């Protein structure tokens, strides 16, 4: 690779006004994880879009001493946003990949993530029916679930017709749509 003027080697030097991990390091926060940077503005914009599903539900976060609180919970693509009921900006967002949706006691379900299965976000619905609806919707909400569905349908159609349905869209070679190369 030819050296290109203007490029610098990777490093932290020369950057002021840092956010995220470097700022945390500069502020002297030891131990624990440092904040991951993300495009918050776009995520906030996503939170304002029409939701696949939204409702006011009692929610409890997996923090010591936390209690059930009424939240506006909103499912948009593979994110679950949760708001204080009178606020426009979400308190937080959960990316719904590699998560487990579990039915707990009556009207209650939880979301946990496979790397930390004991940390549960709990949701208490108004009815068992609402609870089941949310469980179904959240189970289907991940990108990975959608990808598996696509691969399944593609396979089925190919078996029935002998043709790859993605060919006509010019995307049959995309890595993300490949059959049989992905783990569950």
């Amino acid at each position, binding site marked *: 690779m030819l050296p290109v003027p203007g490029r610098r080697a990777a490093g932290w030097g020369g950057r002021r006004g840092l956010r995220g991990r470097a700022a945390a390091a500069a502020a002297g926060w030891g131990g624990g994880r440092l904040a991951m940077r993300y495009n918050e503005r776009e995520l906030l914009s996503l939170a304002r879009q029409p939701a696949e599903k939204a409702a006011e539900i009692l929610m409890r976060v997996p923090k010591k001493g936390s209690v059930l609180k009424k939240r506006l919970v909103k499912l948009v693509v593979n994110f679950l946003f949760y708001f204080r009921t009178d606020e426009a900006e979400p308190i937080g967002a*959960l990316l719904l990949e590699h998560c487990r949706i579990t039915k707990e006691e009556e009207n209650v379900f939880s979301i946990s993530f496979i790397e930390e299965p004991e940390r549960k976000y709990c949701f208490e619905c108004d009815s068992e029916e609402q609870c089941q609806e949310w469980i179904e919707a959240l189970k289907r909400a991940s990108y990975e679930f959608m990808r598996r*569905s696509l691969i399944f349908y593609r396979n089925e*159609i190919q078996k029935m017709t002998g043709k790859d349905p993605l060919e006509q869209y010019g995307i049959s070679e995309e890595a993300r749509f490949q059959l049989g190369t992905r783990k569950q």
Partner: protein
Amino acid sequence: MKLNERSLAFYATCDSPADNAGFLYKRGERHTAYHRRWFVLKGNMLFYFEERESREPVGVIVLEGCTVELCDSAEEFAFAIRFGGTKSRTYVLAAESQAAMESWVKSLSRASFDYMRLVVRELEKQLEEMRWGPAGGCGGCRGSPSSWKPKPSGPEPWPERLPALPTVMPKENGCAVWNNALGADLPPNTSGCSGHDSEGNPRLPPLPPRRRASSSEAGGTGAAAAESPSIFCRLHERYGQEVARLRQDWLERRRGPRP
């Protein structure tokens, strides 16, 4: 806003396959210097690490609602991830080769959840129609277009660009005809992430020529219609064979075991 960062970091580093990965130069926000980072694309999340061996990502770019375009930059092989909205940041990245740049532009522009969902729904519809007949036939379809909700601020709705399905026209030999070549008229750079400039022109860089299925090369309905009876007849024959086999088994069982 809080984010489940631990889970994000896990998603980034777990051994689920990535949709793309490699070194890219990322231009800093305040300074125009580029920093080389290891990028990993999974689903609609573009993670970046300080080093390839780093245990957690430095950051992530959520790719919903973005456009990906080539960049006018002093930097070679540069491209930009751009979001709508007045104060949105544009991420300028540069690859190390033409091929790498094209690969990244392609995979990033199709990375959104919305795009994936459109493709899934399209295939779902095709499968339904193959099993139960086109909408308006026996029982109609589950998951019909009325259940799509194209988002106003999201990427352009794919279904609206597709030609409408023709109604079923039985031919003399009794085979139904339907058009499987949906989207034959779609331009090659349709994607969930592609955007338009103010004149309404698609902004994606030119992609390699799309491989066209033979039916769409013939120009649409005619050729596609010629193929569809063969599909139906093939299915008919296959099920017919299975029925014949079952009947044969049944007849043999009736005759009883041979001496």
